């Protein structure tokens, strides 16, 4: 995944230009667990924020993190503090800003920051909805290098078109795992791939059996 190797490049670019990086995890909080999809991308995005802060701490790159959920604010601040402390720069203060949980206000707030601060990089990762188009457009406007990804597949096209490096769906969670570099965590992603292969095999066998008029596997899994 290009986005993983692009983060140091993004930080380097920001350091050279002397401009900040904008990061947003979207408007989804950490208490929404519908179908196991909503909170997970936000948590993964916050882990990416931590790694980005760690990489950016050494050259002293300012990272402006925005959120549309007040409950994410203290968690994001703590993650940034832990990351910069681990990088040996406890003096760096987190710049996490709550904008609004109202879509329009959140979009305007993010666009305002991107535009006013003339950010060198724009990282938009999480359960990002229709706001992705606006945020990426604002990033293009100031010539920012853009890394983005949404767990919402209907909004993935915007990232493919406008971001320099994009992540689709579950790649967000995998990126968060890879960036930490912990072998156990990376191993869990490899294990997930094995599960995916097994699921695909079951789906293919199930499809063939149903087509052949033997729906016993489908019935078994339904129960």
């Amino acid at each position, binding site marked *: 995944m290009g986005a993983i190797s692009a983060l140091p490049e993004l930080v380097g670019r920001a350091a050279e230009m002397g401009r900040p990086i904008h990061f947003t995890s979207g408007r989804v909080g950490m208490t929404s667990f519908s179908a196991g999809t909503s909170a997970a991308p936000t948590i993964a995005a916050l882990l990416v924020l931590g790694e980005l802060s760690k990489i950016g701490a050494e050259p002293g790159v300012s990272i402006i993190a925005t959120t549309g959920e007040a409950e994410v604010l203290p968690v994001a601040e703590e993650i940034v503090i832990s990351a910069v402390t681990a990088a040996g720069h406890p003096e760096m203060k987190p710049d996490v800003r709550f904008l609004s949980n109202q879509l329009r206000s959140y979009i305007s707030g993010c666009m305002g920051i991107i535009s006013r601060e003339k950010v060198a990089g724009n990282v938009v990762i999480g359960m990002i909805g229709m706001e992705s188009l606006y945020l990426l457009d604002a990033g293009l406007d100031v010539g920012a290098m853009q890394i983005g990804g949404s767990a919402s597949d209907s909004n993935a096209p915007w990232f493919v078109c406008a971001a320099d490096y994009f992540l689709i769906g579950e790649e967000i969670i995998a990126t968060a795992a890879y960036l930490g570099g912990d072998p156990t965590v990376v191993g869990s992603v490899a294990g997930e791939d094995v599960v*995916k292969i097994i699921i695909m095999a079951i789906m293919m066998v199930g499809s063939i059996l149903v087509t052949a008029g033997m729906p016993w596997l489908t019935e078994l899994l339904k129960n």
Partner: protein
Amino acid sequence: MSVLMSVLKKKELPFVILTIVGLFFILAYYFPLPLLASVEKELRGWVIIMGIFLNLLGVVSLTIKEYGIIRKRLAGWESSAWFLVVLIITVVVFFYAGSSGKDPFYTYFDTLFTPLDTGMYSLLTFMVIAAFFRVFRVRSWESFLLVASLVFVMLMNAPVGEAMWSGFPAIGQWITTVPAMGASRASEICIALGGIILMMRIILGLEKRIM
């Protein structure tokens, strides 16, 4: 007391609680025994309460942060002051209104918030068209595929498409129901799996960066 505080401050304690509760929920899901079900019901009530406290924590953190900006007269302190004023007014109006009826909270909401939100929406709606053309450029092979698909799907929905060529609706329909649907389902399955793995990592204490 100091011993208790040192235990509470350690990261291990939250991880232990998280692991026990997380594994309990998994156990209760796969073994629907009456005892487990009743404890699970009780714990779900706790989750709602903790969720509310998490929101409260967010608001308190935000208030402290904005107050700090005002006190130090940092850049944009006026916005922070305005934020606190609006926050206080909203809370006061809400508590004053109580559960006695619609007014005055809904009047405040309908006459102030809704028009502002609608105004913002209309501004952004105009902007979306320009943003669409700026963002949706063919910058790579993937974006070419997207734009090509977009043309067919757009002409499928627009009556002029069928008037131009009867093949547009058929191709557009095929794109929507076959490759787009397949990719969407695959993406949903993968993100659900990824979410489960991430949550398992947190429950088992392997993902320490979040605490």
